[in-house]
């Protein structure tokens, strides 16, 4: 089936049956997923999937329908449904497609044929090698939740009644590992993974297995510490916890409705001078990169926080019209959802400092390597999550810590970022190097 044609035909059919504006977002994908545990394949999944989402506007009222069934009869029925449904929704004069015509898509290097062409056997072998490397690292690695290789090949097509017809294809692949370390009856699990759009850029299985094993071994003997206020270091693995909450609080709609602790802050100092945050959908091969957003707006690179000063909020087509702004090109979605603003490659800009130097400068503090729970409130800015990691004593990592919480207000936390390291790893769409917050509350014994 020609999916571009199907997308366009569906748009035209929606207009024919009474939509003023219409848009189709269509996705197809091929997935491969293998989990290996204790040397044996545990699960192997291989499949292709597709789906189509249609948004229609009738008299500035919006409806949305989606389907995985592409039978013409089903799609025709849904198109009629959509126009009928729209009439039951509220009229909002800011509703509608973005006011943009067709443009040229930048080439972002998001597709690697090798991700697809490498054989299943090779992928299984790499997962096996990763699992083995974890066990080989230390005799205290006695068990494993498994090591996995996952790859995905996807295509996004967007067509709308303003004449847009965009398509882009992308690949992703990743290796993950979760070994269990055991000593004196205590069990601890560690995680590590590599994720990239290009097969040859994966970290090696032996490296992934070794680091995952180190993560679990390091936790053995973890204990609870006293309740106290101390400097807290967010490792690169947990920094995104704070950044993702900051992103949510920068949603233009939430800000204007007063549902964000970062309202009325544009142009103001919301973080220390050490903090520059960028959203860069155009980063070549970036895991959050995309040439056009979920509404067909061409994406662009933005400095969000510049040396602590908040530069902008994020808007989609409707909220931009409503508040007199430009869409930021951050509408994200799958075929089964309506667009809403989301991070592309949203990252805290690394500085020129080795993370070990941050640790060296702390007499008594907490280096956090894992958080548990979603405890960030974007209305109040309150932040409270479970944490584990290493206690810092006299500039050294002294002993592992668990079963404590770290808490503070996110605005204070941002303003108290004293140091930022150089170790950002672009293995997801929200990325952070290690950074130090001068003081937070640790709740423990």
């Amino acid at each position: 089936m020609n999916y571009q044609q199907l997308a366009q035909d569906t748009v035209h059919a929606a207009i024919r049956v009474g939509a003023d504006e219409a848009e189709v977002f269509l996705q197809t994908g091929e997935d491969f997923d293998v989990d290996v545990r204790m040397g044996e394949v545990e699960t192997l999944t291989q499949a292709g999937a597709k789906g189509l989402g249609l948004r229609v506007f009738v008299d500035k009222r919006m409806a949305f329908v989606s389907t995985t069934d592409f039978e013409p009869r089903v799609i025709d029925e849904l198109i009629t449904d959509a126009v009928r449904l729209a009439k039951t929704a509220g009229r909002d004069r800011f509703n509608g497609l973005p006011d943009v015509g067709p443009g040229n898509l930048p080439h972002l290097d998001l597709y690697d044929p090798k991700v697809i062409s490498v054989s299943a056997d090779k992928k299984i072998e790499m997962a096996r090698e990763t699992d083995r490397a974890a066990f080989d690292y230390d005799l205290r690695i006695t068990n494993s939740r498994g090591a996995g290789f996952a790859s995905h090949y996807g295509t996004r097509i967007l067509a709308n009644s303003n004449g847009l017809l965009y398509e882009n294809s992308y690949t992703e692949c990743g290796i993950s590992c979760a070994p269990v370390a055991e000593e004196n009856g205590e069990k601890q699990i560690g995680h590590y993974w590599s994720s990239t759009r290009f097969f040859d850029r994966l970290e090696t299985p032996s490296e992934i297995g070794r680091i995952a094993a180190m993560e679990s071994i390091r936790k053995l003997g973890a204990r609870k510490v006293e309740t106290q206020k101390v400097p807290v270091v967010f490792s690169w693995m947990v920094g995104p916890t704070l950044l993702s909450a900051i992103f949510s609080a920068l949603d233009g709609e939430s800000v204007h409705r007063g549902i964000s602790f970062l309202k009325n802050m544009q142009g103001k100092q919301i973080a220390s001078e050490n903090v520059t945050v960028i959203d860069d959908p155009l980063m070549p091969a970036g895991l959050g990169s995309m040439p056009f957003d979920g509404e067909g707006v061409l994406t662009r690179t933005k400095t969000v926080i510049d040396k602590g000063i908040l530069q902008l909020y994020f808007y989609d087509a409707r909220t931009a019209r409503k508040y007199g702004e430009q869409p930021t090109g951050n509408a994200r979605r799958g075929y089964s959802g309506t667009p809403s603003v989301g991070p592309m490659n949203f990252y805290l800009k690394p500085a020129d400092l080795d993370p070990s130097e941050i640790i060296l400068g702390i007499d008594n503090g907490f280096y956090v390597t894992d958080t548990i729970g979603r405890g960030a409130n974007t209305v109040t800015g309150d932040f409270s999550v479970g944490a584990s990691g290493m206690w810092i004593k006299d500039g050294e990592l002294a002993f592992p810590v668990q079963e404590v919480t770290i808490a503070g207000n996110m605005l204070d936390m941002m303003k108290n970022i004293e140091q930022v390291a150089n170790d950002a790893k672009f293995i997801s769409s929200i990325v952070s190097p290690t950074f130090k917050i001068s003081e937070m509350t640790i709740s423990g014994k």
Partner: protein
Amino acid sequence: MDESIFRSDIGHLLPKESIEILLSTALSLGGDFAEVYMERTRSTSIPLEERKIRSAQVRVGQGVGIRVISGEKTGYAYSDNLDMDRLLEAADVAAHIANGPRAEHPVRITAQLAPDYYTVTINPDDCSITSKTALLKRANKAAFAYDHRIKQVDAYYLDSESDVIVANSKGLWIADHESMIRIGVSCLATQGNISRSASYGGGGRIGMEYFDTISPEEIAREACRMAIVQLDSIPAPAGTMPVVINNAWGGVLFHEAVGHGLEADFNRKNMSIYSGRIGEKVASELCTVVDDAALPNLRGSYNMDDEGTPGQRKVLIEKGILRGYMTDYLNGKLMKLPLTGNGRRESYHDIPYPRMSCFFMDAGDSDPEEIIKSVEKGVYAANFSGGQVDITNGNFVFMLTEGYLIENGKLGAPIRGATLIGNGPDILTKVVMVGSDLKHDPGIGTCGKNGQGVPTSVGMPTVKISEMTVGGTSTE
């Protein structure tokens, strides 16, 4: 029995003979077990924002998942295209998990009837969209009428109807029809420069008659009540102290502290802190913990699990003694344990795993008010937004959204939201009082595991934990 008995509208899409061919193909390389799972779901969702119905949305999804088990290995493939050629391809892909010689494995299936634990009187699909938007408009109106400090209101309505057919190489052929409803309200209360939000909702495996038991107005008012209470909240304390946990949603505590640890897969792999401990004392004798899919109309209820096993009641911990684990087909077979009807999956895209249904702690005999009176200085945890557990070391958290200080046996000032952290086995020994007021949550919970979300319920009476760590900021 023939397929006309099925409570299913999709039987005709995949006739008996086709299923038998698919199962035979799936076993052609020598697997031990093959299964065909077919699902068609139609769902409606309607969001309301700023006093307006933001949009009206309908989603349709259908597909078939084919699973082959060979020893401890699982091969899986799915297709959203129901053409027999594509399904045979999927069966062939799944078959490759076994690598024996190609051979004939004829399979015969026989229709069976799933239990019928709950009734749905008014199918959501038979109701107009405007009757659904009317519910949201009522909620919106009630919220703004509640208090002049309520400044923003969002609400949503969701319903879904699914038809599921499961067939396997043991000869099972079974179908079910499931309905689900959910409604929720979130609101923002503002006073001076202080803003606080709260949300509340409800639902279940039920039809539109749900709204005879609770009105949209009541749901809106409960969200508003919590947001207004929060306006006067003080920073939550930091440190370890006695905690009294409210009934119903409080069951999140046991879902995380012990529930996941009793899922058979983690125990077979010796990954859980409860591995190999059946018959041992794992909790205070006040603790009896049950998983029961057969409770009528709760969000976590079901007639059959996603492998076709009837939903059922299991006592997992009886007066502190561990009695059993929750199983799916694979882990039940490998561990030689009975099937408990806990094999669940998010959709045809997914392999089933052992999951909770309606998981709760049974009632004790303490008066809830006496429980609060017994605490000199501590925290009363009234409402939560969710939780998470590290299954390997047993550490778990749950996020408090409404709480109060307890001072000299009385409720004091409301406190800001905070995370509470504990260690599962340790907390179970610290359950020192259990109330008589068992209640199940209002029906909005979704549990995540291995990347799959499934609807679940939690329940609990009021409980006192002698000591737990509260993750606030106040160290005074």
